[in-house]
């Protein structure tokens, strides 16, 4: 699933080649920092999370499994997990529902330059019904548990679980139909 560029970069990291780490940061630093900022209310902590993300890759390049996805998605997921850990430990770092949903409205605006995959995904998110989208954004980018999603949206826990499930199903359907169009 990964490109040969990803594999070359990771091979360089395994060989302790600092220039390859610079290349990785040049390629993915923006999106890694973007994820950290999306989750965290404090910009300074977001940069720290981004640093920790690249440091973790440098320490253990073997943790990246090219068969399970791209280096970009691996790094962004690591950054998201690190940021969520912080949010769950420190309430003040948590972004509000309004902030998270405002980002969502921004992110489904017509696409800007570049970032093909990002724009495709935004399109996919846009095709999820609004209530499901809200629940997914609160959970995935806001670090809320399904119980917290229910509380913040004022819905029963069962409804929150259903919205998360149906949202993921819809997202998968949209992704699959996109793949079919590409073939």
């Amino acid at each position, binding site marked *: 699933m990964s490109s040969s560029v990803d594999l070359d970069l990771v091979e360089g990291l395994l060989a*302790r080649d*600092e220039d390859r*780490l*610079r290349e990785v*940061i*040049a390629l993915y*630093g*923006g*999106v890694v*920092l*973007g*994820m950290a*900022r*999306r989750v965290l209310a404090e910009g300074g902590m977001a*940069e720290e999370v*981004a*640093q920790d993300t*690249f*440091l*973790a890759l*440098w*320490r*253990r390049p073997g*943790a990246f499994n090219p068969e399970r996805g791209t280096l*970009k*998605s691996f790094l*962004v*997921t690591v950054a*998201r997990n690190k940021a*969520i*850990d912080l949010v769950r*430990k420190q309430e003040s770092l948590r972004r509000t529902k309004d902030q998270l949903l405002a980002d969502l409205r921004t*992110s489904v605006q017509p696409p800007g330059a570049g*970032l093909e*995959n*990002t724009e495709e*995904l*935004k399109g*996919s*998110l846009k095709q999820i019904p609004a209530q499901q989208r809200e629940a*997914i954004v609160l*959970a*995935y*980018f806001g*670090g*809320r*548990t*399904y*119980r917290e*999603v229910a509380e913040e949206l004022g819905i029963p826990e*069962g409804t929150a*679980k259903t919205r*998360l*499930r149906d*949202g*993921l*199903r819809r*997202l*998968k359907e949209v*992704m699959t139909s996109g793949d079919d169009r590409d073939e």
Partner: protein
Amino acid sequence: MIAMNDEHDRLRSLIAPYALGALPEDEIRFVRAHILECEDCMADADAYFEAATSLSTAVEEVPVPAGFADRVLDLARGSAQGPASAPRRRTWRSVPALAIGALAVTALLLAGMVIDTRRALDRSENAFAAILIGEELRGEDAVGRLASTGEGSTLVIAGLPEAAEGRSYQLWFLRGDDAPVSAGVFDVSADPTVIDIDLRFEGYSGAAVSIEPEDGSTEPTGAIVLSNA
């Protein structure tokens, strides 16, 4: 049979939150165990994880601050290659004295930690592994257990206070005469507390925790509060 189906349906309803990382910690292990023994739920989990992972690409790039790569590389050099400074390394050889007089206290702390941790951290198989089979680290009034778990390590600590303002704890892995390798910087938010570490302890012969500046140090510079030496 009806009860079993109810339980299956209940666990199945938690798979989407699990894939999104939105499951409360006390429910994770039940869902994980169920997925491993139920083909239908395993298929659900595969599909949901794929969709959830795709969300990671729905993020806007932001400009990276000047000097960011240099800062990462500075940290990387410190953590991956270790310092070459002999005088600093000698600091570590003086570690054991701290723990010698506190065996009785640490044994009591450890006994309490196992009981309390079983209650408070039931969700964490890694914490159990560290407590049950981990290397024991001792300090003046604190005790820890450290074990390789999965792709990293887990450290469980009891009796360590929050770090002072502007300071952090830093974990170091030790091997022979090699320079200490930084395994990460952390603070203590609960007692006992569980620290997830990216680096595996396996292959190292020793470990210690020192007090360092908030962002950590490239080599140990402060007081040692825990050690297995």
